[in-house]
């Protein structure tokens, strides 16, 4: 193998110019370019109908792209679909299960389907990891919604994929299962599995992801390291609780983005997180010079959710 190709963080999935127009005329994806790095957790955020599931479905071979190219570990998903697909595990959004099949039967089916020889030890490990081992002989129809979700994850992991797609993995699951699933995702990443998840829960992306992509109306609006995204687009707020209420913002503070709140007893300053090194000290210095007294202050940082809403609404 050519050693020059083995760069430290090669893209495990590379998507270029991906476009999908459905028969109905709906353009679900518009020339999307995206590279997923090996071993990362990538979160795809976006409102309903943004194109997240279409993107995943194309990479997994369920939807045919209109234009563009996808390489999975260097294998074209159309011409070398066997090599590409055998590396991928998919956990769909909907609870599609074979009701009459047992848990054990369905994971064994999945492993075989993906071309792997039977391996009871691996399947047992997967089921134990997901707390499904005790349920292995139960019919899927007798399981709760959360358990069915676990079964779908077990099926996706049955053939030891290198890349795992989780389409809305925690939609409609309880808090405990959500925490369990986050822990599982971290364990998988620890073993070198690349994970791509779509989610509506921004705290999930904030908690889990290394990088975040935001999709809106078929376009990839932003792709960024999570921390960089929050630094770049995150807003911070400083609130000063004044000793004496103010009627208007003093002229000497006109250069700052200030608002009076609570009948003039609070002065609120909003600034970009990227300016945090200079913003607060300069303002406080000036306030001191103007002789304005305050009894308390607090700061807060906008969440990824706020960032997301502003990104999506900007382009609406």
């Amino acid at each position, binding site marked *: 193998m050519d050693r020059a190709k083995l760069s430290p963080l090669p893209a495990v999935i590379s998507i270029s110019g991906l476009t999908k127009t*459905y*028969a109905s005329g709906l353009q679900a994806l518009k020339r999307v370019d995206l590279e997923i790095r090996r071993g990362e957790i990538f979160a795809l955020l976006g409102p309903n109908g943004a194109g997240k599931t279409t993107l995943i479905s194309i990479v*997994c*071979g*369920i*939807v*045919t792209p209109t234009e563009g190219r996808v390489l999975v*570990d260097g294998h074209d998903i159309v011409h070398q*679909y*066997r*090599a*590409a*697909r*055998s*590396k*991928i595990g*998919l956990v*769909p959004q*909907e609870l*599609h*299960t*074979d*009701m*009459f*099949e047992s848990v054990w*039967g369905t994971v*064994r*089916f*999945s*492993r*075989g*389907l*993906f*071309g*792997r*020889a*039977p391996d009871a030890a691996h399947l047992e490990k997967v089921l134990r990891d997901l707390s499904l081992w005790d349920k292995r002989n139960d019919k899927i129809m007798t399981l709760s919604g959360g358990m069915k979700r676990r079964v779908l994850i077990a*099926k996706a992991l049955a053939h*030891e994929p*290198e890349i795992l797609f989780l389409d809305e993995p925690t939609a409609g699951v309880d808090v405990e299962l959500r925490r369990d699933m986050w822990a599982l995702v971290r364990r998988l990443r620890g*073993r*070198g*599995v690349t994970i791509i998840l779509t989610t509506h829960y921004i705290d999930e992306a904030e908690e889990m992801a290394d990088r975040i992509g935001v999709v809106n109306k078929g376009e990839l609006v932003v792709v960024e390291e999570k921390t960089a995204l929050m630094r770049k687009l995150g807003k911070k707020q400083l609130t000063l609780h004044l000793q004496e209420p103010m009627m208007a913002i003093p002229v000497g503070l006109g250069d700052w983005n200030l608002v009076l709140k609570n009948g003039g007893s609070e002065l609120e300053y909003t600034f970009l997180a990227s300016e945090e090194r200079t913003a607060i000290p300069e303002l406080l210095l000036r306030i001191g010079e103007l002789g304005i007294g305050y009894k308390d202050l607090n700061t807060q940082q906008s969440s990824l959710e706020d960032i997301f809403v502003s990104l999506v609404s900007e382009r609406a």
Partner: protein
Amino acid sequence: MSTTTEVRAFNRHGVLAIYRFEMARARRTLWQSLVAPVITTSLYFVVFGAAIGSRISEVDGVPYGAFIVPGLIMLSLFTVSLSNASFGIYLPRFTGTIYEVLSAPVSPLEMVLGYVGAAATKSVILGLVILATATLFVSIHILYPAWMVAFLVLTATTFSLFGFIVGIWAKGFEQLQFIPMLVVTPLTFLGGAFYSIDILPGAWRTFSLFNPVVYLISGFRWSFYGTADVGVGVSLAMTLGFLVLGLALVWWIFRTGYRLKS
């Protein structure tokens, strides 16, 4: 985690997984799958064999009760192959579990081998069960057993292939019933399952030659008794022709992603 997954040219495990899954589905409904056809066949023998047979006695030198056996087997083979195979592929489409098969490294040919192979296996087993049931009523001597098995397997495969196509085409459970009810059953009854088309008046006999089922039943009956409505070569060619037609349709379905992929 290894980064080099071995990729074979043929996904043997994938075909076996689908085949076993489909056979397991049949085992869960073993009672309905086998008992119903056995009862139906017995009823046919009571009505056609005993009641009508007592007045017809012989067709082409074969006792009437024995004469209808190949036709009866074919009748069941057509309907069961169609319904089994169409249900086998329609169900995952309906429940959504098809996503897994579509996202797996399984080629169209492997998918067909798994689904159609299982449906055809079930039909052949059923055909043999009906044959065994028939021997309880009439004595049967099979002149060309190898040809009998060949026609049985070919017809089961061909109709399972058609069933697979119907299962992909169907938009609802009603449509799954549509082809067997409205097309295959009438063609079978008019195709000489219970009589030789030679006994039909001239015009109707000519008309019957346009019925593809005539050739399938005739060839199968020839393997039992050595007598046929049409030449056995023609029967074999027609059977193979249907198989090729089915394969071509399936090839087109996978090429275009028709009703499987958007």
